[in-house]
């Protein structure tokens, strides 16, 4: 009787212990739920499949003869979180804003050819008139945003941001005051004007005030061939297409960018 009772209780103890062992085994075999989890959960997709429309101001940097202040328009579509195609347009609203270099240079030039001590010296009017300036700028580019993050200003204002590089086609429409050549022996019109197509590279960032409004800062270089002074550069005494050279046209822009749809997706 005692033996049977012992067997019964032994079986009962074993049955009660078994689930414990099984549960521990399950825990050992169980894969961590975070094993393949994304680096960031509940991430606000501020760019993915959203349109961006921006408007703002821009300025030339280290211009040689004419500063340019632009009114900018920017349209972009963010294909995913880190690839974007965009188009930009800028209209120069300060076409007569000369640089200090241009002003100092022109100050030393004679008013008329008769005043010139050397026949090769251009007059003030001809020198200024042949210098070209950016009238309009256009860009069509792809953007890559490898850097996305968050920052705190004064430990109070928190903003999402991204940093992108851009590259694509750029075009600059140059204008000048003169429509004919200021050089004495020219066989073509010296002021180098008209639409010049080249490359467009740069860096930019968005700092988001909220889910649909951001400050867009951009610095880009429009690389086009031109002759800024409209004068001879290769020493053959006249200005023509052989005097064109690749120039860097650095432009800084600050835009307010609106994102559509206004409510972004949030990841799992």
């Amino acid at each position, binding site marked *: 009787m005692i033996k049977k009772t012992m067997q019964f209780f032994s079986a009962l103890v074993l049955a009660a212990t078994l689930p414990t062992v099984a549960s521990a085994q399950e825990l050992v075999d169980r894969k961590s739920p975070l094993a393949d989890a994304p680096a960031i959960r509940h991430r606000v997709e501020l760019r993915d499949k959203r349109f961006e429309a921006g408007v703002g101001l821009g300025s030339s940097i280290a211009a040689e003869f004419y500063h340019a202040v632009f009114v900018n328009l920017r349209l972009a579509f963010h294909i995913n979180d880190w690839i974007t195609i965009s188009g930009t347009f800028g209209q120069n609203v300060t076409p007569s804003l000369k640089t200090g270099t241009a002003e100092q240079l022109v100050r030393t030039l004679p008013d008329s050819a008769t005043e010139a001590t050397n026949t090769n010296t251009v007059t003030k009017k001809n020198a200024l008139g042949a210098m070209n300036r950016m009238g309009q700028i256009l860009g069509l580019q792809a953007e890559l945003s490898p850097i996305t993050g968050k920052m705190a200003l004064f430990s109070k204002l928190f903003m999402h*941001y991204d940093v992108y590089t851009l590259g694509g086609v750029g075009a600059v429409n140059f204008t000048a005051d003169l429509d004919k050549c200021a050089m004495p022996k020219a066989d073509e019109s010296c002021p180098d004007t008209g639409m010049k197509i080249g490359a467009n590279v740069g860096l930019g960032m968005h700092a988001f005030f909220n889910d649909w409004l951001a400050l867009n800062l951009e610095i880009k270089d429009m690389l086009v061939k031109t002759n800024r002074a409209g004068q001879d550069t290769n020493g053959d005494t006249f200005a023509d297409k052989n005097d064109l050279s690749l120039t860097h046209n650095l432009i800084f822009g600050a835009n307010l960018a609106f994102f559509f749809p206004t409510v972004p997706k949030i990841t799992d």
Partner: protein
Amino acid sequence: MRRLFLGLLPFIGLSIWASPGQAQQAAPNTPAKAAEGDLANEPEPDLSSEPLGEDPLADPAAKKAPAAKPAVDAQAKAKAAASDIVVIPRRSFLKAGRLELQPLTGVSVNDVLIRHWGFGGDLNYFLSEVFAVGLQGMYFVKERTDREGLVGLQYNRIATINRYHWTAALNFTYLPVYGKFSLFNKYIMHWEGYISGGVGMTKTEIIPRRSQDETFSTNAITANLGAGGRLYVLDWLTFNVGLRDYVFNDKFEPTSRVPGQDIATVKKNADDQFKNNVMLYIGVGLYLPPSFNYRSPR
């Protein structure tokens, strides 16, 4: 027999109790892991949601059944308590009381006639995490631009330009911006932004329009204002980038200078002009002591 039964009863009870007990031990894994994720992810933890998804071991019947009111109240209390816990990741880099030695190099970006390459260093002492006081010195190497060369060819003129020899300044730095970013959503890096200003001296020298003419130098009191950022790489190393405008009153060779004129007279007749020398520079910050300790445990 009865004694044997009574003797085994506690053991049976203990064995049966052990199963749910062990299962309960597994549960804390969930919030702990979620907190880990939140630290990396940085947004505030949303403890009201189920961060790990549905528990495959949970009883579906229990999930479907409407929860009893007391249970809901308890859950709400737990949520409220959890929402009081804010996860704040520690600063990844501490600077207070440390010295930064920064070799740097830069280039002027605003003068179309002459370019200056700068080589020098910064020595900053951090009074706190956001304030620093420092000394800066830079030696300049000049490079005439293509435009400067073309002025003679195109306009029959020689540009009046100065070269810079060196600059030194006492600067004060404030760091209002702190940020982090993920590179391709993989690597998380921390950085900071600063604004800085100071006062110092710049030595300049005229480049005479006639190369055989004598030159004179000017030591100009210089104010500077800059902004930049530091990317933390190691406990003792940062990558720095900055843009700084040095403003000073410079003296240029007078246009009225005649050959053979006494240099003192030339300097007396010099044309004064406020100049901006905007330098873009990069550097590496080396920190002493090379390591730091947090004051509170993690």
